[in-house]
Each structure stands twice: as C-alpha cells, then as structure tokens.
C-alpha cells in the first residue's frame, strides 16, 4: 500500500486533490481510497486529505499516520502543522513553493531523506498561468506523478477531465503537465548533481 497525505488550506482544493489522485489510480486498475480530515470547513484553515493506493481492496479507515508521501500545498503550514509527522524514511516530499528546501530552512531535515524523493514546484504560479486562480492542486498532482511514478500524467489528466467541465479541465491539465515537466527537469538536475558529487 502507498499512502499519501496532502496538507493545505481550506479553499486550495486539498480534498479534491486526494479525490483526483484516487481516480487516477483507479484508472490504472488499482484500488484506492481518498478521504478528507473532517471538520467545519473554513477558508484558510489547515486542511488535510488522504489517499491510499494498493493492488488489493483497501479496508483500513484510520487517518494516514505514516505516509509514504506528503504533498504540501501551502508552505506557510510548515510552521503551523506537523506536516512531516510519521513520514517514512524512503518517503517523498513535494512542496508548492518557488523556493528550495534550503530556502525554507529544511536543508538539515531533508538530509534524513533520499534527495531524489524531495522536490519543490511553483504550483501556484503555474496554476495562475493556466487556470487563472491560485489553485495549486492539479499542478501538484502532475508534480507528484513525475516525482513518484505512482500514477501516470495521463491518468492524472484523465481524472481531471472526469471531474471538471472541459474548459476548467483543460487549464488544470495544462498546469499538471507543466508541473510534471518541471519536476522531471528538477529530478534530472538532482540526478546529474548526485552523479557529479
């Protein structure tokens, strides 16, 4: 089982991101389960959503306490919520920011993880270009597909196409695609750096 926890703020499409991810995995004939942390929904409040992907039916209903990947839709949460709580040593981290882990003061923390599993992506900027609104969720799913290879970009795009009307879907698919390519480039740079270093 592969478990993903998505942190963001109310209004950023955190719950939708988990749902889309589950649909993308379903389209690849896998079992998946997406659910939000439940509460009184308020714009701007910290929100968590969860997604599990497995080859077998998923029965577990507990929140994801030991994720294999965390997606952080809003880097201001780093100082407010234990976003990395329980993250597995081989886990993946994808943060929506134009800055680096070092810029965010996470250089030392990042050393505990596989550098090839960590990435930042300016998802909000990408979303502004393609969707016209600061909704980073679709971009981050594109980035997630590139970083982890757990779902394909095609499945993410198909899930987006299923969820939204054609025009909104097209913008979000473009954003996911740009983020996918961005993360792929970052990973190549990281791989080249690792080889050189």
């Amino acid at each position, binding site marked *: 089982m592969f478990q993903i926890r998505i942190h963001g703020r109310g209004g950023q499409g955190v719950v939708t991101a988990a749902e889309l991810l589950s649909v993308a995995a379903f389209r690849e004939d896998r079992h998946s*389960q997406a659910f939000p942390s*439940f509460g009184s929904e308020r714009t701007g409040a910290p929100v968590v959503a969860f997604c599990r992907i497995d080859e077998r039916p998923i029965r*577990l*209903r507990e929140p994801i306490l030991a994720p294999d990947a965390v997606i952080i839709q809003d880097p201001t949460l780093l100082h407010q919520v234990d976003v990395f709580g329980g993250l597995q040593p081989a886990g993946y981290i994808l943060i929506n920011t134009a800055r680096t882990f070092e810029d965010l003061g996470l250089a030392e923390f990042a050393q505990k993880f596989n550098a090839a599993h960590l990435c930042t992506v300016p998802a909000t900027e990408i979303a502004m270009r393609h969707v016209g609104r600061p909704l980073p969720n679709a971009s981050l799913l594109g980035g997630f597909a590139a970083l982890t290879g757990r779902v394909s970009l095609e499945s993410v795009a198909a899930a987006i196409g299923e969820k939204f009307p054609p025009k909104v879907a097209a913008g979000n698919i473009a954003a996911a695609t740009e983020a996918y390519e961005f993360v792929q480039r970052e990973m190549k740079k990281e791989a080249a750096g690792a080889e050189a270093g």
Partner: protein
Amino acid sequence: MLKQVEGSAAVAEAIALCRPQVICAYPISPQTHIVEALGRRVDAGELTPCEFVNVESEFAAMSVAIGASATGARAYTATASQGLLFMAEAVYNAAGLGLPIVMTVANRAIGAPINIWNDHTDALSQRDCGWLQLFAEDNQEALDLHIQAFRLAEELSLPVMVCMDGFILTHAYERVDMPTQAQVDSYLPPYQPRQVLDPADPVSIGAMVGPEAFMEVRYLAHVKQEQALELIPAWADEFRRIFGRPSGGLVHEYRTGDADVIVVALGSVLGTIKDTVDEMRDQGHKIGVLGITCFRPWPSVAVRDALQRAKRVVVLEKSLAVGMGGIVGNNVSASFSGSPDCVHTVIAGLGGRSITRGSLHRVFEQALADSLEPLTFLDLDRALVDRVLERERVQRRSGPIAEGILKDLGVVAAKIG
C-alpha cells in the same frame, strides 16, 4: 460498472436506480451530498416520475415521507444526528403505521457538546422505534443495502434505515460496482402497497387503538421484525444471485472458525478491525471478527452461533448508553451462550475520534491476556477527565465542562484530524 466515486454519490445513484417516486429531505451534514445529488437528478429530468420535496425540517421530511408512502409512492429520505432526533416522533409513526419508507442515516454524534463527526449515537437512539436498521461496512455495501432496503421494506411493509458512517463513508472516494437498471429492476419489482390512500377505495390509516388491541398491534410489529430475520438472509441470497456479490444479510463472520477472541462491531470500523486481526493472526493469535449488518431486528441466533466457540468477546462500539455502558455490548451479552463476564465492551470513536490499528492492537491483546476490563473507553485521556473532576470538587462554579476541557487542552476550537 466499476466506478471511483464518493460514497454519497454512489448511494444517490443506487437510490435513483430504485426508482423512488417521492424524495424529501432537509439538509444536514454529513447526509447533504446524497440528497443534493438526487435533487440534481430530479431537476435534470433523469429521475421520473419523482417529486423532490424541499421541506422545512426533519420532522417535515419524515411527515412528507409518511404521507407519500401512504398514497402508495415509493418514498425516500435521509438524515443524521440531531435531524434524526428532531424527526423522532414521525420515525415511530412510520414504523407503527407500517409504511415502507427507506431512510439513509449518515451516522453522526449527538450534541451537546455540538459535534459534527461520526459515531453511532444517532441511529442507536432509535433502535426501539420499529424500523429495520442495517449498517454498511463500506460504500459498496452502503449502495447494495439501499437496494435491498426497498425490497425488504416493501415486502414487510416496514420502514428500513440504512446506516452508513458519516464522513468516513459518505465522503470517501472508493471503488464501487454500480449495478445496471435491469439488475435493480429484476430485484425490486414495482411497489405493491398493503394499504393505500385511494379516493376510489377510501380507508383511514392511523386509527386510535385503545387498550383492547394496542398490545396486539405492537406484538404484530415484533412478529414482523422476526419475519425480517428470515427474509433478510433470503433477500441477500437473491441479491447475490442477481448482482454476483455477497452483500447484506444478518452478520458477517471473518476468521472466526478457531478464534478464542471474537471482536464484534458495526459499520466501517470493521475494515480497520479486520486489518488488525490479520496482523495479529500473523503473530499466531486466534482472533476473529463478527460484523453485525442487521442491528434491528437483532439477529440473536446468528450472533449466538457465531460466538459459540469464543472464550472472550470484545464488542467495539461507537455508542454509549450513558449510565449503563454499551448498547451493542448489552445486545451481544443477551445472545452469548457463555458467561456474560466474558463479554467486554469497548466504547470507541465517539464524536469522530480516530480508531487506529495501534489502539486496537492494545485492547485486543488485553483481551487475549484476560486483562481487559468489562467496560473500557478506547484512548480515553484520563488526565483530562481528572482535571475536570478535580475542578468540580474544589469549586462550586466550575463552569461549562466542554469549554473548560478545551481550555485545558489549549485549543480554541475542535482540532481537525
């Protein structure tokens, strides 16, 4: 057809396939997505003939369902929590009148303190009202139970409540196999009412009955519930024949064959329990699970048979009979042929508290080691409780408990997650 959808959307689609003729509802979390989806279908003309009635309260929702059902219409509504309590008088009337209404209860806690999260207090508060109560383990079963509910309700002329865990199931996206209209039509024939308000053949429904026959009418309600115990497995078998999967029935047994300890529970927590039990089986522990799908009527014989060989029974329930203990636990004890001392009640998940494998391991290991108390509260913060009790001991005006306990915890509002 396999689909990856939200539980509420799956249930709404299943309800639509059952061709309801009157849907009335008053919105309350976490039931809202179900009736919203049905409202959209009626509005789009995808569900005809069907009247969607916006009502002013839950009391009105059940009253409209009663009226609709009495005219021979297939009637559906949904509610949760305080909404179910607000309609309680009409809930009893629907059962007493023998009207086959189907209602989803998206299980949620009852206030005060106000709490929108999941537990089973709402449905279990209505356990003696005369409705059948079915509990879904996952969204596939929630969908399937609604189809079975209409069949059972109309066959017995009794209302059926389908209980699905609020948020945990209603808001979860997972895979479901959506049946075809032809499958549902072959399982669920058009409604043939036993009683109908028809101007061409006038009758009264809802006569006053005095002491001369009230007992007999109530006894007939009990007889019908006993008939349901026969019909539910039969209709589950028929369901399996048409839809190709097991769903519904009275109880589900899981790895109980040689189990020394059997855990009994209702609803979606069964999934987490089964995963925990698998882990404990891998460690060599003889532990199994009994899922109660049908809570009313209470399947006493099925429960007794399933628990026959168990040395210890752990009833894990999301409800509390304040001042007594477990509600499900009490029912299980009454059906257990062994010593009642071997039945342990664990109150868990009240007001949406997460029930984790880690906590379940601890409590099940205690049961295996014969060290589990008769009544325990899973993950109870005893220190927090003691602070309140101490405050009340030293101070007359100790203040409101809920606000005080949040202050002790250092939160200004309920924590999410």
